[in-house]
């Protein structure tokens, strides 16, 4: 008899989850707006920059911020606003690349380790331990020593070490997820392990890694800036935020804007990304189980 359960057809309030701006926490919206403006400015730098990034104007050395030079000029008369835009452009491209190459590598390695356990887990865990405890900057400097100065050192060095934290995160999530009935069901249903890991587990554990990646983005940005500051990152004369700030340092006392304003842009980006990460993890808490 169908009579018993057919009323089920009329049951339940249908709710659909859609990706929409509405209903997102306010911090995500604010953070998203900040990041969007900065990314847009970086992408459109050649269009909106008022000057060339290496355009010298010795008549305008160390000019204070004004209508013609929003962020002022540096000791060679270059427009700091222009250099900030170009610097941001370089930095964002590199940082997004290294972060989102590290993330999938780490998530897959961690998920495999957590799912299989045994020697796979032991191997992955030991390697991540080494990577996490290895002084990161020394590793990057070593790579720079091999491949020569420039952004290549960061592009290679960060993914080599950066995946380890994602692997740890994914592994610990997987250990919990593995015991969930719906994961047990993938085994019971006779699915392959590849299907279980990639189709069922990873979509459910990647969120924490994505949230962490917002922190990682900022960390990597700071790393890149500090390497450039040390002269190991982007090479002059092309603009990069770290090197712009480094150059401004010598004139900090008589022309504060050269180092400070690009630095504030860096901070603004960090705040924007942080807000997004914060909002996402809040949503996760609330979304919890329901």
């Amino acid at each position, binding site marked *: 008899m*169908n009579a*018993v*359960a*057919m009323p*089920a*057809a009329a*049951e*339940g*309030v*249908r*709710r659909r*989850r859609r990706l929409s701006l509405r209903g997102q926490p306010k911090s995500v919206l604010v953070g998203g707006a900040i990041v969007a403006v900065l990314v847009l400015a970086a992408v459109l730098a050649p269009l909106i920059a008022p000057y060339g990034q290496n355009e010298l104007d010795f008549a305008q050395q160390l000019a204070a911020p004004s209508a013609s030079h929003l962020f002022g000029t540096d000791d060679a008369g270059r427009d700091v606003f222009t250099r900030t835009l170009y610097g941001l452009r370089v930095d964002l491209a590199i940082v997004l690349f290294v972060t989102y190459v590290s993330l999938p590598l780490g998530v897959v390695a961690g998920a495999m380790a957590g799912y299989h356990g045994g020697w796979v887990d032991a191997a992955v865990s030991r390697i991540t331990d080494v990577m996490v405890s290895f002084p990161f900057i020394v590793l990057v400097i070593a790579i720079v020593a091999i491949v020569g100065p420039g952004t290549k050192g960061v592009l290679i060095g960060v993914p080599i070490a950066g995946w380890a934290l994602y692997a740890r995160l994914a592994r610990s999530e997987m250990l919990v997820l593995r015991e*969930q*009935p*719906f994961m*047990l*069901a993938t*085994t*019971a*249903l*006779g*699915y*392959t392990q590849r*299907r279980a890991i990639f*189709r*069922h587990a990873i*979509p*459910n554990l990647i969120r924490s890694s994505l949230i962490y990646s917002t922190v990682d983005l900022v960390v990597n940005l700071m790393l890149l800036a500090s390497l450039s500051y040390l002269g190991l990152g982007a090479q002059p004369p092309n603009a990069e935020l770290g090197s712009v700030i480094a150059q401004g340092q010598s004139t900090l006392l008589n022309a504060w804007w050269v180092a400070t304003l690009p630095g504030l842009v860096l901070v603004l980006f960090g705040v924007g990304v942080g807000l997004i990460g914060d909002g996402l993890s809040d949503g996760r808490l609330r979304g919890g*189980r*329901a």
Partner: protein
Amino acid sequence: MTQQGGPVLEVAGVTKEFSLRQTVGERLSRSEPTVHRAVDDVSFTLQPGEILGLAGGSGSGKTTLARCLIRLVEPDTGTVRLGGADMLAASGAELRELRRRMQMVFQDPYASLNPRMTVGQAILEAGRVHRRPGSEDGERFVAGVLERVHLSPSFADRRPRDLSGGQRQRVAVARALAVDPEVLIADEAVSALDVSVQAQLLKLFVDLRDQLGVAIIFVAHQLAVIAEVADRVAVMHEGRIVELGETATVFGAPRDAYTKALLAAHPRPNPRTKQEVRT
């Protein structure tokens, strides 16, 4: 479907031990790890179309036993034969095919479905992975499977979070049925549900047996639930089957002391039939 009247499932001498985690002190003194025998030399057979209840308190080993059967937990010793095929010797594609033939429904209706998949996706995936006939036409396949558990085709687009506990459990059953199993293991599948919903699910299991001829191992800690559906019952205690027989016989005239204690302690809805307390 029946293989010349033989049992669909033969379980013999299945044993599973877990060694308890040792403290640092114990490790240093190199004492032997304490071993807990969760399943202890269990044997039984299951006929096609039979519903076998597996009863016992928490820690009796009934869930571990159920998991050993499809090797979610690897048994230490023993044999499990599904339609004559050796479950424990199989591996790779052969094991996946054997697992298809013996499906499982889990206790927690809130966690047994992937929250990121719609009902239709989950059912269709199961059907397609095992190339079930009809699964090329996704919509019809899903509707057909949903109908077996008395859910309307409109459920295909829903996600687990939009369903009630009873509906989720129906979907979990539907997903298991999508691969045409010969044996269905229901591991406390109705324990988390309200009685009014539980009654409907119990009826569903009996209907499935009657209509599809699927044999069911019904694991439950509530004896009354087993009384409602099972033809035979096995009572487990400390890893062993202490009593096995026709449900009416075992519940009407229990022989084992533990079975007697379980039956006596069962809370009767009739206030004049008082339970007994044994301490």
